[in-house]
């Protein structure tokens, strides 16, 4: 177990190292001169330009620049926005809670609805309800987030005027539409997963045995099947962080909601490279950490993995 843990952690550290190299490279991969791109229309003397180059540390050899970037990043210093000179880490800290609130609401929604739907479909396997639930779920998977958001605005904000179309903070009414938009495709995935794994488990020998012993069906499902069917769902939660963080770019844009997704989109169109780097780095680090934790939890829940 310890060996596994160590190996898993080592892999994560190696990946994080690679992530940092990749993110660092963004500024160097930009075609053309990054200083020109930053200064833009402002007419600046050669002296000031050299000063900026110095300030960005672009005169040093690349490995030196990388080392400086890494050591600063490890101390929480992700540089400054070149648009409004706000420290990148500060901007991200300001925006992150809003994104997390959105992601968690979407996840709760997806797990709640998806679970019930999937479970019911599995129990009623082969009936019209199963077909309906699965049709709904494949539709939910196929609907583009950005279109769903617009349709929800059209219906609930423009026509019914139930919820605001712009969303700030974490109040219920502000979160409903964005969370629905972000969570609906997830709901479909959860429903399909729960159904599949329930059907799988329900066909297992020990369930048949339990039924043969005369255990009531509700008990079979609750006590035996459900518990085992839950394992893949747990992993799913971890894996979906990526989707939720990524999907927030679109949802936050539609609902003009604060958050790191919107921060990223705006930084890209503003060519605010330090900001782009910062957001991408933070999201990737969060993702790697959650994946590592999920893997480890999963391994503990399911000891057979360790043998591989």
């Amino acid at each position, binding site marked *: 177990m310890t060996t596994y843990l160590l190996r898993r952690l080592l892999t994560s550290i190696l990946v994080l190292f690679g992530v940092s190299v990749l993110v660092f490279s963004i500024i160097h991969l930009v075609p053309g001169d990054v200083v020109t791109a930053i200064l833009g229309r402002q*007419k600046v003397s050669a002296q000031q330009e050299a000063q900026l180059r110095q300030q960005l540390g672009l005169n040093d050899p690349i490995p030196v620049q990388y080392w400086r970037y890494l050591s600063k990043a490890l101390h929480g210093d992700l540089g400054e926005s070149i648009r409004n000179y706000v420290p990148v880490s500060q901007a991200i800290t300001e925006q992150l809670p809003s994104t997390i609130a959105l992601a968690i609401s979407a996840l709760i929604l997806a797990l709640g609805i998806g679970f019930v739907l999937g479970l019911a479909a599995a129990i009623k396997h082969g009936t019209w309800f199963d077909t309906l639930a699965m049709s709904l779920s494949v539709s939910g998977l196929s609907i583009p987030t950005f279109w769903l958001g617009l349709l929800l605005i059209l219906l609930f904000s423009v026509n019914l005027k139930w919820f605001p179309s712009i969303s700030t903070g974490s109040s219920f009414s502000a979160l409903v539409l964005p969370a629905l938009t972000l969570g609906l495709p997830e709901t479909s995935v959860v429903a399909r997963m729960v159904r599949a794994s329930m059907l799988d488990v329900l066909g297992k020998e020990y369930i048949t045995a339990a039924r043969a012993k005369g255990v009531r069906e509700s008990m079979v499902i609750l006590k035996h099947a459900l518990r085992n069917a839950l394992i893949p769902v747990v992993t799913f939660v971890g894996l979906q962080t990526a989707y939720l963080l990524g999907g927030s770019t679109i949802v936050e844009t539609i609902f003009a909601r604060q958050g790191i997704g919107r921060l990223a989109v705006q930084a890209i169109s503003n060519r605010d490279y330090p900001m782009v780097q910062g957001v991408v780095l933070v999201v990737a680090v969060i993702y790697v950490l959650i994946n590592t934790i999920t893997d480890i939890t999963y391994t503990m829940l399911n000891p057979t993995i360790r043998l591989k």
Partner: protein
Amino acid sequence: MSKTSKLFQSILILAAVSMLLAACGQPAATPQATSAGTQATAPVATNPPAPVTTDTPAPLSGGVLTIGIGSEPNTLDPGAAVYVQEQFVLISLFDSLLSVAPDASLHPGLALSWQPNTDYTEFTFKLRQDVKFHDGTPFNAAAVKASFDHIVSPDVLESGGKTLLDDHKYLETAVIDDYDVTVKFGASYPTFLSDAGRQWLSISSPTALALYGKDYGRHPVGTGPFKFVKWDAQSQIVLERNPDYNWAPEYASHQGPAYLDQVVFRILPEAATRLTAFQSNELQVVSDPPALDTISMSDSGQAVVATFPNPGIPAIMMINTDKEPTNDINVRKAMILAVNQDELAKTVFKSLGMPAYSVLSPTTWSYDEQAASLYHYNLDQANQLLDQAGWVLNSNGIRVKNGKTLTIDYITSPVWEESFNELLAGYLAKAGFDVKMRSMDDAGIASEAAAGNYSMLYMYWTRADPSPLNILFLSSNINGGSAYTRFKNDQLDQVLTDGNTQTNMDLREQDYVTAQRIIMENALVLPLFTVNNVYMMTASIKNFTFDLEGYPWVYDIWMTK
């Protein structure tokens, strides 16, 4: 994306410059622009300018005013500011040495009186003695010196104020005693007094400047009617009433502290989002609302609309005369003739829009009717010109000459009104142009513009005076400046240079009339529409007026319960 609008807000008004109103103090210099200043009625800018102040009951104090704006300021340091959206907020936070009334007349501000020397290189101000900054620092001669010195210091990389001071070789601010100060320049600066009334040259607390250093732009401290409370990035800027405020300009409709408790600027880049927020009562004022909705809401009485037709350079395309195929004057003429400005303005902005036919808008001093009458939409004539120039239509409806297509390289910004971009491309396509649009942000446009990689470049410039023509057309500004047509003409250079320094107003006017004619005769620009500032507000907003350049004058606004 937005309507009329993001244009106004987000595009860099390079406006770094001189001569706000060379004819300062001459009421004739600012014709209609001033009367429109208090127009808060129906959407059409030409409607009767009934001031709203008279029929209303006594003003009420209190309330939070939330204004939806499209672009976020980069800084709230007046000395580092450039953009429209910055000045929009700064006007409530800061005061300047002078106050410029909507009719362009000069009034005491932080200075009680002023005296220029004979060659307009030194200006002596007598300062108010009863003013203190939001942080408690007393206002005095040292504060004036600190503010101006800050602008030219390396802390400020580039700004509107820096350009003004640098261009006129700012020497120093000499403190005579606590309340007397002389600002000295190395060059004659006849328009300094009116410039000293603008937001770019307003006065900051020397304590705060020293305390925050480079970070001052996030912690502005002025003497204005509102104090800075907080700035949540990408979300909002919150100001609260300055209870000590007792030095409002004499032309203001009241004295003492402002009526509103708080002013919140909500940053909502999408015009559609600003509209929805307005409809759900989250905003009381929307800047640059979507035109279609604005008109329908105003017609149905759900909203009040105020428009401010900006004088200066209207929305134009500056055509690159240094690059194929637009180096050919016939191609440029064909471009102008192919665009139906009237229809374009109506389609995009509905009744809020007004077409432009020249390089200056009609509300600008020295506007020349003749220059504006040179071209009238005529597709046949455009086609004829292109035929004569040897551009032959191919089977795809695109013109070709010597194997090269008639391509217009058009860099757009995602914040601009897309339908105007696409409509423009559509008109040009009808004449056989192949318009290639490239979407870039300001910085991207800037580097392409500097490199000359474009066929036409979007521009507008709000000024009551025609002086921005110098920045945009003097051939000395081709490299490293903003003379994006890259056109060299001795006569044009000569009249523009003379117009900039001429003190005889008749001769000066003649210079700018000639300049307009040269520009239009050579088809250097493709005029599009006049830029209007449009604000939509609830009926509870009273006394909504504009300052000289179309910024809402929040100090005088009050709200009914």
